[in-house]
């Protein structure tokens, strides 16, 4: 009998994985949280919107169109479940919720293509209305044709900083400034690795030209000081320290923040995959082999949800993971070696990007005590430091239990990395020894209203945490 393969996600990795499975004669089940395919990077605008691929995706228009067309052609040959959240995974079964309807699906093989979200470092005032993630600012424009404000500052580091700023400029938004925490010299030092994918490097340089031509001020090597504003009206300005130490304040009504991306690894965690501390990215990542096999038999990880290497790499790692599934089921496959070779170049390029736009770990230790770290529950850096000192909690989950940092409804997605840095600095221990926040089911808050049939399915599947969350 043909193996039952479940693919989570219909971004670049998920679509190419599904395509490879269909080519081999299988009928995979593709589950996606979104209303339409494309993932975040190639997110499709709502039905009835009229902007062209060129307008929406710029230099990536052809790739976006190709991915969407591939998925449209696959639809009759797969079982596609949009607007469906995988909220838990147990051995060989995924637990789903769509609206208020719950169900459980068994699988022989699972390919998790869960994508990435912005990696965030808190700054004083970032909880105020009008502060968004860079990815969020991009979604507002791409998916809804809106700018996040009438005068916008983009702050942080990474390719998305320049991409979103350039997209906003092209769409006619007023970008007040681009404030980059990385330096020009870091970019120069990263150049040899960035040359692994010359076309991508060229596109990056073109983005900075868009900003120069639009006379958008770009400051490099800055340290964020504060997002100014008021509790009732939100953001009114941004203050940074320039490399020479002098302060710069820019008036704005919105700010987009981000320091590159972090993989969404909760599902890999719930599937039981082993995680290892990655010294290069300074984060815990699920262990995978070159083809995307996780440490649990039958579980494969692909795309930015496994390793942040960008959309082009995600298409390849998605396909490669699917070929690995087929191979592991004893089927004959071709092309794995070529995909591995191509991915190695993207891996080198991604390391170059991290060196060019480094995660500013050192900022965590110098955040003023009154800075909110956990946006969900408005918990400050000072409170987290106090808990570390008072209780001796030097491990992420212990510190979370005492401080509630990481316990809020984002489940540590936006405070977890900075929280770990703050704990490490307060306890004077290496970041790796702080550990990582354990993934919890449900991976996102669930609707409270349940149908009776759903409740039965849920009772069978639910962990105790899930039940507690639902019955709140």
């Amino acid at each position: 009998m043909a193996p039952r393969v479940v693919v989570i996600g219909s971004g670049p990795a998920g679509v190419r994985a599904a395509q490879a499975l269909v080519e081999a004669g299988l009928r995979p089940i593709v589950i996606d949280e979104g209303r339409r395919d494309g993932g975040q990077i190639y997110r499709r605008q709502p039905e009835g919107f009229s902007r062209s691929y060129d307008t929406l995706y710029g230099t990536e228009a052809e790739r976006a169109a190709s991915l969407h067309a591939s998925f449209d052609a696959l639809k009759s040959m797969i079982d596609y479940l949009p607007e469906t959240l995988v909220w838990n995974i147990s051995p060989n079964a995924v637990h789903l919720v769509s609206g208020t309807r719950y169900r459980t699906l068994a699988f022989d093989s699972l390919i998790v293509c869960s994508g990435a979200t912005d990696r965030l470092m808190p700054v004083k005032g970032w909880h105020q209305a009008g502060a968004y993630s860079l990815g969020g600012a991009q979604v507002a424009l791409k998916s809804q044709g809106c700018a996040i404000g009438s005068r916008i500052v983009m702050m942080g580091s990474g390719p998305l900083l320049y991409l979103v700023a350039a997209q906003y400029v092209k769409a006619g938004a007023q970008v007040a400034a681009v404030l980059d925490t990385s330096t020009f010299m870091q970019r120069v030092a990263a150049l040899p690795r960035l040359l692994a994918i010359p076309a991508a490097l060229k596109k990056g340089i073109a983005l900075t030209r868009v900003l120069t031509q639009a006379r958008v001020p770009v400051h490099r090597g800055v340290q964020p000081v504060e997002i100014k504003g008021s509790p009732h009206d939100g953001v009114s300005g941004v203050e940074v320290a320039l490399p020479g130490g002098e302060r710069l304040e820019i008036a704005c009504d919105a700010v987009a923040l981000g320091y590159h991306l972090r993989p969404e690894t909760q599902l890999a965690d719930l599937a039981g995959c082993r995680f290892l501390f990655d010294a290069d990215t300074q984060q815990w990542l699920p262990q995978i082999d070159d083809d995307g096999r996780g440490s649990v038999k039958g579980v494969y990880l692909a795309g930015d949800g496994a390793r942040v290497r960008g959309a082009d790499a995600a298409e390849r790692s998605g396909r490669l993971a699917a070929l690995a599934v087929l191979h592991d089921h004893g089927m004959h496959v071709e092309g794995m070696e070529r995909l591995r070779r191509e991915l190695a170049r993207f891996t080198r390029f991604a390391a170059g990007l991290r060196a060019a736009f480094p995660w500013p770990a050192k900022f965590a230790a110098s955040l003023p005590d009154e800075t909110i770290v956990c946006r969900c529950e408005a918990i400050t850096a000072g409170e987290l430091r106090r808990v570390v000192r008072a209780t001796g909690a030097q491990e992420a989950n212990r510190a979370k239990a005492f401080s509630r940092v990481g316990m809020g409804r984002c489940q540590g997605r936006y405070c977890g990395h900075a929280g770990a840095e703050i704990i490490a600095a307060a306890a004077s221990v290496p970041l790796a020894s702080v550990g990582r926040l354990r993934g919890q089911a449900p991976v996102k808050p669930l609707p409270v209203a349940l149908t009776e049939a759903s409740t039965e399915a849920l009772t069978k599947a639910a962990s105790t945490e899930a039940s507690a969350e639902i019955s709140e």
Partner: protein
Amino acid sequence: MNGRFVRLAEQGRKTFAITVDGVVREAAEGDTLMVALLTGARTLRDSEFGDGRRAGFCLMGACQDCWVWTAAGERVRACSTPAAPGMSMVTKLAEAGEGVWPRA
């Protein structure tokens, strides 16, 4: 009232009425609730932890900082919920029948 979000494209869409905190506002076909609300107001919702008003953060269903309430008291995520004709939304904790949440 000035809005926070600024419409830059897709401006020719049909519009319909929704109600926000008892005030009738205009939304466009294809708008998420978040866009419908924030094109007409500076903020989206009360923080449950007493630090003021919020306006969402990630726009991709990950941060949960855009929860608002229907008039019937149901909690919805504004960034991933389409606006629909006749919707009546509440953005204030007190009117949603909730107080500031306890932290301990």
